[in-house]
């Protein structure tokens, strides 16, 4: 079954970039089931599509990524969440992992860093 992916980031440029990188030959086929620009929209989409993989920004309007991770992890424990955030301090990464994220990659990232992080998330 093709893994399904939801991309959550308040930047359209970043959402587009992640979607493009998901077509990298090193990755298995991914079905992008939705994109959201804030945590609230992400929560609704996650309930609807039940994605197996999620890339999640942290600094977003309406509902931030940390709260969204906690709620999605509670409702969809099978979803694997990769945080993609500019927040570069260790405490933020630790908090996100404690709330249910499975990986953390810092912005800015290059193509290889994101593909490697997605591969690790799927394995």
């Amino acid at each position, binding site marked *: 079954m093709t893994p399904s992916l939801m991309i959550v980031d308040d930047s359209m440029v970043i959402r587009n970039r992640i979607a493009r990188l998901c077509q990298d030959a090193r990755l298995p086929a991914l079905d992008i089931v939705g994109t959201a620009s804030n945590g609230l929209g992400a929560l609704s989409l996650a309930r609807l599509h039940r994605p197996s993989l999620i890339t999640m920004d942290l*600094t977003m309007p309406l509902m931030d990524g940390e709260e969204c991770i906690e709620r999605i992890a509670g409702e969809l424990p099978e979803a694997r969440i990769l945080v993609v955030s500019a927040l*570069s*301090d260790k405490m933020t990464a630790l908090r996100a992992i404690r709330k249910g994220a499975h990986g953390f990659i810092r*912005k800015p990232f290059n193509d290889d860093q994101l593909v490697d992080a997605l591969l690790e998330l799927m394995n």
Partner: protein
Amino acid sequence: MKAQALETADIEVFSEAVTHFFETTCGEKAQVRTAFLLDARAPLPWGDFNGIVEASGGYSGRICFSAPRSLLSHLLLRMGQADFSDEQHLDIVGEIANIFSGRARRHFGDRLCISPPRTFAGSAGAAALAASATHSPPFAIPLCWNGYEASLVVQLDALV
């Protein structure tokens, strides 16, 4: 609570964030010039697009990235984008302000809380900074990437 201006080491964190961003995103270094205090005698030539991140928590102030359309268009192209609308330029200038601010948390820690970016076209950034006369004077870090000039403007006080 007392407001305390940034020190030299604090300012260097932002210069490093600029270098790291261009190197990681494009594989090329930006030239980062000496930071200077902005005042009436040294006003900043604001770029076409500005992204502003507000600081809160243990800090007060804002971090602003100001860039010309040409720099942002080139950057969008390098990031694989095919849409060069104003909306995309506002999006990327805000995202860069967010990335510079987030990178600064390596040094300042999670007491530096940052907002999602607000974005403006034109010189609205100048008005945002001028409206906050209660803060320490802002300083600018000029940079040059691929021949395009831009600036990171930081107006930040630690609350002690």
